[in-house]
C-alpha cells in the first residue's frame, strides 16, 4: 500500500525556484558533479511544477507569501493556469535540452559552467512566471538574462562574443526601460503588486508612459521587430543546446510578462493593439525574407524565430484591438508550440551540423552523410512551425485566425496566411535538401548517423506535432484560475 500524500498540504510554490538555484550552486561548487546536480535540480523543479499544475487544475489558486509578508511589502508567489503552462514548458524543454547535453560528448569549452548557468536561468524564469509583483518580475527577468548571456558566450568564438555583447546591451537597455516604467508606476500609485496595480492603473497621467516604457523594454528583450537586431547573431552563434534554450525558452519570458501586463493589468487602448499588430506583421515579413536569404542553417532558424515572435505579437495585438477575438489563448498556444518546435529544430540542426561538418544550406545536399533521425525531427518541427494540422502550431494559428474572422479583421487574417506561406518557403529550402541525392558523389545508404542524442529533439518534435490533437486540454488549463480576469496573488 502506497502511503497517501496530500499534495495540497505541501507548499510547492518555492520548489521550481529554489531547486534549480540549489542545483546551480552545487554545480558551481562541484564542477565534476555539475551534470548530476543539474539533472537533480531540474528533476526536483519538474516535480514542483507538476504539483503546482495539479493544484491549479483542481481549481485552487495556490499562493505563498514568502516569510508571511503580505503585499504591498512582501513577496508573493502564485500560480494560475497561465503560470502552470509556462512552468511545464520550462520543465519539458530544460529536461530535453539537459538530456541532450548529457548524452553529447562535452565540448572542450565551457563544459563545467553550462549546467550552473542553465539552472540559474531556470530559477530566474520560474521566478518570473510565479511572481506577482512587477519589481520581482523585473529582478528575475534580469537574473535569467544574465545567465542567458553567459550561456551565449560558451562557444568562445569572436563572433559569439560580439553577438553576446550586443545581446547583453539589448537586454540591459530593455531592463532599464522596464525599470523606468516601474518607477513611474510606483511614484504614481505607491505599490507594485499586479493585483493592486490592476485596480488603480490608468488613474495617473504617467501610466500611459509607464506602459509604453515597459512594453518597449519587453519588446526589446523579446526581439520584436524592429527591435530584433541582436537576436539572429546571438542565437545562431551559440552551441546548439544553448540556441535551443535561448530561442525556445528565454524569449518566452518577456512575452509571458507582456501578456500578463497587457491584457490583465494595464487595460490598453485599441490603438496600442494595432501598433503591436503592425510590429508583428513587420516581423513576419522581415524575419521571413531574411530567412529566405540566409545562407547558414542556424541563421535561418534564428530568423524564423523573429518571424514567429511577430506571429505571436500579431495574436497579442488582435486580442487587444478586438476584445471579441479570443486570440490570447491562440497567442499562448503559439508560444508553447514555438517553444517545443524551435527547441527541437535547433537541436536537430546542431546534430545535422555535427554529422555533415558544416551548415551551409546550399551544400547540405552534397553530403553523403545524412543524419536521418535528426532530419526527421527537423521536418516534424518545421511542420509545426508552419502550422499544418494536426500540430500544436496549427492549433495556435487556428485560434488566431478564428479570432480574426470573428472580429472581421481580414487584414490580420491575411497576414497570418502570408506568414504561413512564407514559412513554407524558407523552411522548404532546408527540407528539400534532405530528399535530394543527385549531387552526392559516392554511395549513399539509408539510416546513417543516428545517436542517442537524437532522442530528445525527436520527442519534442513529436510532441509539437501531436499535441495539437489535445489542444482543448491545454486551453482548459490556461483558463484555470481565470488568468486574465483575476490575477494570481489577488488577496481579497
Amino acid at each position, binding site marked *: 500500500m502506497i502511503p497517501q500524500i496530500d499534495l495540497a498540504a505541501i507548499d510547492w510554490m518555492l520548489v521550481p525556484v529554489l531547486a534549480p538555484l540549489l542545483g546551480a550552486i552545487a554545480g558551481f561548487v562541484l564542477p565534476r558533479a555539475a551534470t548530476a546536480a543539474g539533472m537533480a535540480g531540474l528533476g526536483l523543479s519538474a516535480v514542483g511544477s507538476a504539483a503546482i499544475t495539479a493544484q491549479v487544475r483542481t481549481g485552487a489558486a495556490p499562493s505563498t507569501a514568502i516569510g508571511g509578508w503580505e503585499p504591498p511589502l512582501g513577496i508573493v508567489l502564485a500560480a494560475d493556469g497561465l503560470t502552470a503552462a509556462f512552468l511545464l514548458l520550462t520543465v519539458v524543454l530544460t529536461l530535453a535540452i539537459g538530456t541532450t547535453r548529457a548524452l553529447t560528448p562535452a565540448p572542450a569549452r565551457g563544459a563545467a559552467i553550462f549546467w550552473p548557468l542553465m539552472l540559474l536561468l531556470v530559477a530566474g524564469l520560474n521566478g518570473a512566471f510565479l511572481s506577482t509583483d512587477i519589481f520581482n518580475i523585473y529582478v528575475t527577468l534580469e537574473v535569467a538574462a544574465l545567465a542567458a548571456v553567459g550561456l551565449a558566450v560558451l562557444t568562445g568564438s569572436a563572433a559569439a562574443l560580439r553577438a553576446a555583447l550586443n545581446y547583453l546591451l539589448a537586454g540591459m537597455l530593455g531592463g532599464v526601460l522596464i525599470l523606468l516604467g516601474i518607477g513611474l508606476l510606483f511614484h504614481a500609485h505607491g505599490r507594485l503588486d499586479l493585483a493592486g496595480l490592476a485596480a488603480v492603473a490608468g488613474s495617473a497621467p504617467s501610466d500611459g508612459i509607464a506602459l509604453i516604457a515597459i512594453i518597449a523594454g519587453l519588446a526589446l528583450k523579446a526581439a520584436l521587430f524592429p527591435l530584433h537586431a541582436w537576436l539572429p547573431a546571438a542565437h545562431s552563434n551559440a552551441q546548439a543546446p544553448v540556441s535551443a534554450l535561448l530561442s525556445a525558452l528565454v524569449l518566452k519570458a518577456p512575452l509571458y510578462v507582456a501578456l500578463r501586463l497587457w491584457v490583465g493589468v494595464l487595460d490598453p487602448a485599441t490603438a496600442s493593439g494595432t501598433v503591436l499588430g503592425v510590429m508583428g506583421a513587420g516581423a513576419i515579413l522581415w524575419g521571413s525574407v531574411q530567412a529566405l536569404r540566409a545562407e547558414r542553417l542556424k541563421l535561418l532558424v534564428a530568423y524564423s524565430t523573429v518571424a514567429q515572435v511577430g506571429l505571436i505579437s500579431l495574436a497579442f495585438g488582435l486580442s487587444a484591438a478586438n476584445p471579441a477575438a479570443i486570440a490570447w489563448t491562440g497567442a499562448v498556444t503559439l508560444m508553447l508550440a514555438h517553444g517545443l518546435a524551435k527547441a527541437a529544430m535547433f537541436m536537430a540542426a546542431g546534430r545535422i551540423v555535427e554529422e555533415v561538418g558544416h551548415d551551409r544550406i546550399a551544400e547540405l545536399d552534397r553530403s553523403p552523410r545524412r543524419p536521418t533521425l535528426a532530419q526527421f525531427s527537423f521536418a516534424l518541427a518545421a511542420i509545426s512551425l508552419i502550422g*499544418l494540422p494536426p500540430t500544436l502550431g496549427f*492549433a495556435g494559428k487556428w485560434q488566431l*485566425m478564428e479570432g480574426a474572422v*470573428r472580429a472581421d479583421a481580414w487584414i490580420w487574417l491575411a497576414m497570418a496566411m502570408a506568414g504561413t506561406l512564407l514559412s513554407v518557403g524558407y523552411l522548404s529550402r532546408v527540407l*528539400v535538401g534532405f530528399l*535530394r541525392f*543527385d549531387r552526392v558523389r559516392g554511395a*549513399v545508404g539509408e539510416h546513417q548517423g543516428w545517436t542517442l542524442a537524437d532522442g530528445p529533439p525527436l520527442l519534442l518534435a513529436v510532441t509539437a506535432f501531436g499535441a495539437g490533437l489535445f489542444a*482543448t486540454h491545454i486551453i482548459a488549463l490556461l483558463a484555470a484560475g481565470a488568468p486574465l480576469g483575476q490575477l494570481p496573488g489577488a488577496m481579497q
Partner: protein
Amino acid sequence: MTEFLTGLPYLPLLILATSLGIAPVIFVLDDAHARARTALNLSAAAIKVALVIWLSWQVAQGTEYSLQFEMLPGLDFALRTDPLAVLFMALSATLWLLTTIYAVGYLEKGPHRSRFFGFFSICVGATVGIAMAGNLFTFLLFYELLTLATYPLVVHRGSAAALKAGRLYLIYTLSGGLMLLVGTLWLSVLAGSTEFVPRGIVVDLTDDHAGTLQIIFVLLIAGVGVKAALVPLHAWLPISMVAPAPVSALLHAVAVVKAGAFGIMRVVYEIYGIDTAQALGVTGPLAALAAVTIIYGSIRALGQDDIKRRLAFSTVSQVSYITLGVALASPVAAIGALAHLIHQGLMKITMFMAAGNLAEELHIKKVSQMNGVGRLMPGTMLAFSLAALGMIGVPPLAGFISKWYLASGSLAENADWVIAVLLGSSLLNAAYFLPILHRAWFLPPSGTTDSRLPTRPKIGWMMAGPPLGTAALVLVAGVLANAPFSPLEWTRFIVSREYTE
C-alpha cells in the same frame, strides 16, 4: 475509463492503424531487412482489405461506428463510417494491396525503399482518414497529411526535375489547403459546426448569409479542387508524373485526385446539401467548370507523346466526370458520379501500372515508341487495352456504366448540353487511346524486321499480376454492375441517403 475503452470503435481504428501504425516500423526496417519489411507491408495491406470487407458488411447491416473528441474548443476530431466513407475506403484498401505488390517488384533494389514504403503507407492512411472524417475539420487534417506524405514520393528520385515538380506540387496543394482552411474556419464560425450531415448544415443560414455562403463555397471548392485537378488548378498533376510508376498509379490516378473529388462530394452533399447548393446558385458554375475541365483535359491529352503525361491529362478529364455528376443535382447522375469514383480508379491504375511495365522493361516512355509492344508484352497490353476501352465507354466495361448513368441523369434534369460534353469527351477519349491500341497490336515493333521479334522481357509476377488483376476488376465491375456489393449497387445505397426526402 473502461466504458471509454469498450466504447471505442475498434474496427475503424484498426483500419487506420494498418497503414498509419506500420509506417514508423517500415521507416526503421532498412534494406538488410527488406524481406521482413515487404512481408509486414503486404500483410498489413491484406489485413486491411479483410477489415474493410468486414466493415462494409457491418455498415450494410446498418451499423455505424463513430469516434469523437474535442480537439479545439467547439471543434471535434470525428471519425465516422457512413456508406460513402466505406466506398472510398474499399477503393483505397484494394488498390493499396495491389499497388504495394507492384511497387515491391518495381522498386526492386532501388534506393530509399524504407522511406518510400513508409510514406506510401502514410498516404493510404491519410486517404482512409479522409474517407472516415466525420466533419470538414477532420477532413482538413487528413487532407493536409496527404499533401505532406505525398511530397517525398513525388520527389523520390531526388533529381532536379523531380524536385522542380515537387515544388510546384507543394505550392499548389498547400495553397489549396490554405483556402480550405480559411473556408472551414469561416464556416465553423458562421454555422457553429462543420459536421457532415446528409442534406447539409447551412439550410437555416441561406436567408441572411447567402453571399457569405457563396464565398465560402468558392473557398472550399478551390481548396479541394486543387487535388481534384479542376481547371485551372490542375497544372501540378501532369508535372508530378516524374514520380515512380506506383506513385503515379495509386496516388495521382486514385488517392490524391479522388480525395479532392471526394471532398467536393462531402461539401456539396453534406455541408451545403444539394438543394441548398442549388438554391444558392453554385451548382451551375461548378458543373460548367467540370465540363470545361473534361473537354480541356481530353484535348490536351491528344497532344501528349509521353505516355504518362497523356494518361495524366486523361485523369484531369475523367475525374471531373465525378464533379459533373455531383453538380448536376440529379440522383441518377449522382449514382454515375459515385460509381465513377471507383471505376475511374480501377481503369486508370491499370493503365499506369502497364505504362510502368513498358518503361521499366522496354524503356518505352513515349506513345511513338509503342509500335508492336502488344506482341512483346501481351499481358500488360491486354490489361491496358481493357482499361482504355473502359475509359472510352465501351460496354460492358466499367466506364460505360458510369457514363450511362451520367447521361440518363442529365436527360432527366433536361441538361442536354451534358450529353454533348459526354459524347465529345468519349470521342476524344477514343482519339487519344485508340491510336495507342492500334500501334501496340497492329504495327510491327519498330527497329526490327518483320520476321524476327526481339525476345519477350521477363517481368516478375509482382509487376505482371496487378495490372491484370485491376483490369479484371474493370470487367467485373461492368458486367456484374447489378450484383450486390458491386460499386454501382453500393452507390445506389449512398445516393438514396443523400436524396431521400
